[in-house]
């Protein structure tokens, strides 16, 4: 007897788990198929940050805002786990006058979008985080930004979905998509076939492979982030996430709008060969997250190396060199664990959400470079799209069709 489902979600990360929850509240027969365990890839090993100051105007910012509101409601009314959600704000710290000049103009643009971010002077910066190096002369600070524990958040969504009847098949790999006359009819897995009219590709950095099973090309590429965690620091940080100000170029000083985003812009017809291969030194983006347990999570690189999960001692060394310039007491501790994960990369840094015209019943919910900032809003939008054929807000910006122009 073939198993049946109303919707099969491929991928048990934050996107698949949150979508399972949003769907299971509305309809029955929700099945998540996950190759490994819940949150075992990027969703279980990222920095757990809901940023506003790095968001782009439009859908990106709107979904992050909506997700922030939803997390507050979810933590108080839905989740049965403490996801360590804390709205303590994020800071991008800087040292030089040039960096300050650029950041001030970036902040002006962001304020026009209604992002509650401001530039704080040296005194206030060190008041906000006393562990910072004396050389730090200021920061941009957005008190509305929040952090959470990404593993527990993914698990909390999965458990909430299960309470509403969703089934999670972990250790189960999708091997094919069955179609008939341009419609999805089922999913083949390592544990047998599931009959279903809807398949959602929520496979994150592996979404391209899943799309290929349906003979669709989906330009989502894995971007490797290397990270490490230290033992707890003697002087606890105040739990604000810190982003090191990067070097600013003359171009950015002249055109601050170019400094607004960290995204790498590529043309829509970009493929793997278009992805930049840069020297390691230019792939380091210092990032420090004090966790509730007192350990410091430190990142990151941003590299295109396919699905190679290696960590490079040189990358870790460069990362730590930048990190101790921000928080000097890091010199006194030990590194206890290192890892790499893959975040999905798209040419315009926006996720891919919605239907594809070639295959009825096949939906994409992948390509989130900032899945923690976007998951709850993504889940609600796609659940409404599936159940009522009407998303609560327009998804055109994230349409799969934008790659084909």
């Amino acid at each position, binding site marked *: 007897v073939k198993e049946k489902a109303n919707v099969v979600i491929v991928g048990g990360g934050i996107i698949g788990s949150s979508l399972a929850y949003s769907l299971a509240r509305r309809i029955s027969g929700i099945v998540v198929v996950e190759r490994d*365990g819940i*949150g*075992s890839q990027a969703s*279980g090993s990222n920095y757990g940050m809901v940023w506003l100051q790095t968001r782009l105007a439009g859908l990106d910012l709107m979904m992050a805002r909506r997700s922030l509101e939803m997390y507050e409601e979810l933590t108080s009314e839905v989740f049965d786990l403490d996801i360590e959600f804390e709205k303590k704000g994020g800071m991008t710290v800087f040292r030089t006058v040039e960096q300050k000049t650029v950041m001030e103009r970036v902040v002006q643009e962001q304020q026009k979008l209604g992002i509650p971010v401001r530039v704080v002077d040296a005194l206030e910066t060190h008041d906000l985080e006393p562990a910072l190096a004396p050389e730090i002369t200021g920061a941009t600070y957005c008190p509305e930004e929040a952090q959470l524990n990404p*593993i527990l958040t993914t*698990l909390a969504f999965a458990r909430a979905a299960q309470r509403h009847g969703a089934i999670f098949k972990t250790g189960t790999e999708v091997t094919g998509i069955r179609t008939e006359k341009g419609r999805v009819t089922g999913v083949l897995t390592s544990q047998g076939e599931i009959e279903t009219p809807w398949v959602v590709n929520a496979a994150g950095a592996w979404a391209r492979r899943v799309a290929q099973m349906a003979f669709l090309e989906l330009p989502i590429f894995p971007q490797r982030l290397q990270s490490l965690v*230290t*033992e707890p620091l003697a002087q606890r940080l105040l739990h604000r996430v810190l982003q090191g100000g990067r070097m600013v170029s003359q171009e950015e000083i002249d055109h601050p709008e170019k400094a607004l985003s960290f995204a790498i812009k590529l043309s829509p017809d970009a493929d793997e060969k278009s992805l930049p291969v840069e020297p390691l030194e230019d792939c380091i983006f210092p990032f420090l997250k004090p966790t509730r*347990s007192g350990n410091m999570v430190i990142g990151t690189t941003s590299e295109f190396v396919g699905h190679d999960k290696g*960590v490079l*001692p*040189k990358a*870790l*060394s460069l990362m*730590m*060199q930048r990190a*101790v310039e921000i928080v000097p007491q*890091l*010199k*006194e*501790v*030990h*590194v*206890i*664990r*290192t*890892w790499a994960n893959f975040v999905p990369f798209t040419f315009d840094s926006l996720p891919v959400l919605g239907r594809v015209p070639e295959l009825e019943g096949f939906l994409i919910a992948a390509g989130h470079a900032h899945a923690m900032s976007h998951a709850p809003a993504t889940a609600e939008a796609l659940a409404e799209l599936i159940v009522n054929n009407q998303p609560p807000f327009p998804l055109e910006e994230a349409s799969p069709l934008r790659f084909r122009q």
Partner: protein
Amino acid sequence: MRDAEEFVCRCEEVKRETIEQVIKEGALSLNAVKRLTRAGMGLCQGRTCRRLVSRLIAEIGGKSREDLPPPTVRPPVRPIPVRSLIKGEDVL
């Protein structure tokens, strides 16, 4: 002594009852237990508690210890001083 209050993971101070609870809820691998409880995430990275957690999973989950998937082992093998890493010493 098999007290529910005893610490299985001493680094992260995770009690036996906490670990037993998540195993009963379906965490049937060392990685799954780690993600839920932090057991094995501390300074020793599971060197002390790995065997104890395996035994609990085997007992409660009705599996043999040999059948459990091995945990993800991430470098470094021993904690390394940040100072050495910065200097680019061969530490990993």
